[in-house]
């Protein structure tokens, strides 16, 4: 199947062009929607075939390198348009196309009747195209192309309902905040090219393998790449765009802002795992940033009332967990959590979309309640997703999250473990607050006018499939006390380089099954307790008071947006307005140009009088010139 692998990337692009160019002419929701979906389904089938092809090879040789054409060739810089198909990238391609297909199907139902229907699917296909380039690219520039492409699609889809001002603002915010991260990515690329003369990842990694640990250059490159990852994967300090990105359509939030695009940062760090193994200094920063983000976002989610905002902060928090895993050099577990998170968070977002659809665009959970019986499928699937997120065995989230927490305990120490435990406790609490307020209790909406209904089957079928995946997805990466981690074996060749470097300076950690089981028991007990407390409290709550004290700080998201406004946005705006525009632009640039023009116009006003229009005047001057020339020639 790998012979047709180019189709994996080409199909979504074709879908984008057909829907983008002719969508308005076709003007048929069925054709547009199904065409887009099939343009994702075929790549899924091909990549599944390629997956089995890789599986049939011996573990060390599971790499297919496909060079399509020479993309850029100038001087020292030679870049091929080439894809690297290895266990890591094919896993992500399967997630992207698989979940992408389900979300496309769901979107056909969700976007029904929207006037930008074809445009929406065109953007969605373009997104998948860019995301596949990001994951498959064998060099940093191709990855960067995908990186910027997904950023563009994210911008276009957040601002999809552009008639409302806040969606446009949210789109701009996402784009600009991401630019800060992209800046880091680009400087990292420049540094790599300047020092190693290549942008191809495997060549770069093999060149650095000999360099000593914590070399200054490697720390700089790894920190800058991490800055890029922070932007895309919404980590402190650049996470602020993701909650606002919920202004877009809900399936977009599920696909881009939960399952795929925001995990690009994790992918980038996993792809360059050798670099991070060689720069433990940076990896420790990754760990701290991940921990802080996981904790901060989880606490903010406790007090949010917008159903999508809660899930958005939950995503930020779970991405923090993935960075914690990378901070502990557990690249496999980071990818494992990435995959399980993609399952259950896509499910939760699609479930929330179904709720919003049924409630006629109501997103405030304080105005819901009692939806359990009215939306049975949505409720059951959402419940499974929530259990997976909370980390209840044997659902998928349990395996990946507990593995991260256990590794934090043995690699970094109990203090770090406590932080992850608090974040996990908050996770269980906020998601069951959401369930309690949305699905249980008495309806708090106007029952006379609003009749919530179950969504059409086109929307519920993806929910059911994702619920099954969320339930059983964890079994691909069983912890060693329970069995055998298939994902661990599968990804082992990709991370073997990093692991052999690690073994040179990191002492072997004492692993003990008793300790691990004890930690698992602690986290399960904590999560269950939190679920019970939260459920008891919120499933019966009917009145809502303004939170006070710390609750108010949480509801206002630690005032981070306000702080950014005051310290960064406003000073920039003021300097731009008062100095750059009013003084530099108007006085200096415009003044200089207008001054020159005015001077010349005044000068020419006087000088044009020598043009009398009388031919004899011109002739006289001409003859005088000849005479002067003659005199010069004779007497020189």
């Amino acid at each position, binding site marked *: 199947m790998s012979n047709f692998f180019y189709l994996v990337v080409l199909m979504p692009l074709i879908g984008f062009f057909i829907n983008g160019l002719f969508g308005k002419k076709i003007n048929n929701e069925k054709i547009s929607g199904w065409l887009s979906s099939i343009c994702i389904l075929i790549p899924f089938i091909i990549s599944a075939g390629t997956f089995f092809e890789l599986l049939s090879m011996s573990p060390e040789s599971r790499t297919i390198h496909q060079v399509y054409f020479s993309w850029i060739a100038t001087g020292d810089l030679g870049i091929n348009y080439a894809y690297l198909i290895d266990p890591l990238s094919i896993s992500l391609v399967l997630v992207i196309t698989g979940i992408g297909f389900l979300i496309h199907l769901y979107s056909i139902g969700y976007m029904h009747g929207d006037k930008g229907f074809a445009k929406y699917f065109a953007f969605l296909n373009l997104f998948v195209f860019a995301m596949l380039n990001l994951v498959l690219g064998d060099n940093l520039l191709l990855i960067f192309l995908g990186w910027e492409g997904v950023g563009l699609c994210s911008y276009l889809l957040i601002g999809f309902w552009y008639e409302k001002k806040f969606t446009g603002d949210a789109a701009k915010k996402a784009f600009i905040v991401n630019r800060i991260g992209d800046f880091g990515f680009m400087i990292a690329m420049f540094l790599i090219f300047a020092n190693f003369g290549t942008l191809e990842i495997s060549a770069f990694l093999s060149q650095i393998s000999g360099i000593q640990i914590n070399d200054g250059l490697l720390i700089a490159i790894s920190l800058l790449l991490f800055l890029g990852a922070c932007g895309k994967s919404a980590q402190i300090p650049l996470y602020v765009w993701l909650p606002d990105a919920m202004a877009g359509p809900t399936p977009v939030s599920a696909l881009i802002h939960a399952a795929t695009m925001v995990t690009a940062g994790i992918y980038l760090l996993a792809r360059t795992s050798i670099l991070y193994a060689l720069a433990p200094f940076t990896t420790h920063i990754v760990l701290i940033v991940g921990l802080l983000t996981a904790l901060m976002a989880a606490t903010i989610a406790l007090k949010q009332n917008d159903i999508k905002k809660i899930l958005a902060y939950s995503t930020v928090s779970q991405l923090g967990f993935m960075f914690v895993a990378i901070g502990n050099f557990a690249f496999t577990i980071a990818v494992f959590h990435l995959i399980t998170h993609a399952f259950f968070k896509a499910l939760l977002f699609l479930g929330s979309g179904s709720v919003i659809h049924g409630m006629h665009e109501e997103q405030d959970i304080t105005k819901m309640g009692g939806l359990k019986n009215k939306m049975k499928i949505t409720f059951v699937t959402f419940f499974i997703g929530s259990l997976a997120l909370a980390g209840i065995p044997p659902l998928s989230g349990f395996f990946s999250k507990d593995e991260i927490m256990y590794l934090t305990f043995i690699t970094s120490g109990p203090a770090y473990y406590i932080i992850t435990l608090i974040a996990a406790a908050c996770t269980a609490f906020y998601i069951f607050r959401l369930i309690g307020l949305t699905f249980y209790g008495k309806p708090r909406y106007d029952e006379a006018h609003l009749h919530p209904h179950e969504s059409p089957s086109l929307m519920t079928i993806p929910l059911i499939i994702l619920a099954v995946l969320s339930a059983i997805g964890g079994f691909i990466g069983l912890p060693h006390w329970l069995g055998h981690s298939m994902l661990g074996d599968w990804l082992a060749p990709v991370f073997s380089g990093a692991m052999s470097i690690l073994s040179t300076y990191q002492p072997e950690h004492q692993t003990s099954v008793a300790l691990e089981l004890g930690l698992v028991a602690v986290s399960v007990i904590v999560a269950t307790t939190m679920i019970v407390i939260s459920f008891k409290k919120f499933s019966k709550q009917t009145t809502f008071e303004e939170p006070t004290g710390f609750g108010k700080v949480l509801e206002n998201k630690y005032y981070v947006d306000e702080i950014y406004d005051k310290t960064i946005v406003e000073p920039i705006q003021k300097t731009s307005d008062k100095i750059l525009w009013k003084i530099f632009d108007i006085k200096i640039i415009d003044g200089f140009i207008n001054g020159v023009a005015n001077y010349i*116009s005044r000068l020419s*006003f006087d000088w*044009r009088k020598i043009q*009398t*229009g*009388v031919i*004899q005047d011109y002739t006289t001057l001409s003859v005088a010139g000849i005479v002067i020339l003659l005199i010069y020639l004779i007497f020189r």
Partner: protein
Amino acid sequence: MIELNHYLVLSAILFSIGVIGVLIRRNAIIIFMSIELMLNAINITFIAFSSFMGDIHGQIFVFMVLTVAAAEAAIGLAIVIALFRNKETINIDEINILKWLILSNNKFKKCRISFIL
């Protein structure tokens, strides 16, 4: 004995008379005749050199100049006639519109502002 210098001096004198005629006369036809005078002064130079140096090229060139002068006479006279029909004069200093626009004060200011903007 008439030498080459004599011819050349004669030619220079004729040429200068022609130039002065072009520069100071106002009647277009006189200017025209002055130009012919200049051309023929050049012709004398050509012939003189051709004869004294035994080179036929100079004489061939004279035919060329004569042809051009004839063509010029045809076109030039036609232009003079056309000018007279339009302006009722062939005084060269009255035919002087090929220069900046002569506008009233107001119009001129406006023009200048639009130019600056």
